């Protein structure tokens, strides 16, 4: 890993942390309430981020600028069971 890689990681992480705070996702009540369907900020944030990301990433792919990185393998049981366990922890901790 080069110094440029580290700098890019720090800068992108900084922007990531910034939008996480501005969307309120680092607050307990935002995470807790999305599972009670009383405050959908988490969903609105993640879905709009995914929309922008999908369009941008696939545009760059068709332009031949990027290859899609090794995506997490789809393993039916693991993805589903992992998600079911993850949800319990996320609702409890509020992270």
């Amino acid at each position: 890993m080069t110094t440029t890689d580290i700098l890019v990681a720090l800068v992108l992480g900084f922007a990531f942390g910034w939008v996480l705070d501005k969307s309120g996702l680092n607050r307990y009540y935002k995470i807790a309430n999305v599972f009670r369907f009383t405050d959908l900020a988490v969903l609105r944030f993640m879905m709009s981020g995914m929309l922008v990301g999908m369009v941008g990433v696939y545009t760059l792919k068709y332009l031949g600028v990027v290859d899609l990185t090794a995506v997490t393998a789809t393993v039916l049981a693991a993805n589903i069971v992992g998600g079911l366990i993850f949800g319990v922890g996320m609702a409890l901790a509020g992270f």
Partner: protein
Amino acid sequence: MNWIMKQLRKDLWSPEVAGIGLGLVYIFALWFSHRMPGTSGTFFNIAAVVGKPLTANDPINQFFSVSYPPITQGLNWQFYMVVGIFLGALASVLIAGKFKWTLIPIEQWKDVFGGAVWKRWLVAFVGGIIIEIGAGIAGGCTSGLALAGGIQLSPAAFLFIPGIFLTGAITQWLIYRNRY
């Protein structure tokens, strides 16, 4: 200029506006570093960096030296990104003037579950363990699997997300009941 400063000082943005920033972070990460941001792997990375030297000469415990070679080559890209996340969120609260030290979440938690610090820390600790077990089984967390996978249209993400909401909603229903 004033308008920009006003926006930077805001406590919260509309989630959609922040979401556009989130999408851009993922696009640029793939573009400039050929990686997708994830965070839960950082715990594996740190554990491997600490664990490998400790178990290097142990003939029985070969986990870090044999089973996990890819993440034992020092601190990885993800680790530095997580450091950046901390700095970015810190800068955001400092500029918004909302920085303060607190042992438990003041909003909502205190009203519902009381002010006992040990209770919040215990729940957060246990919840954190469950989160990392789930992420380990599924292959990623909300950032590394749900967002990174979803953006690349991986089926794994769309199997993972409904599960989170199913058990998350049941858990909150059980612990909140009719409170709050």
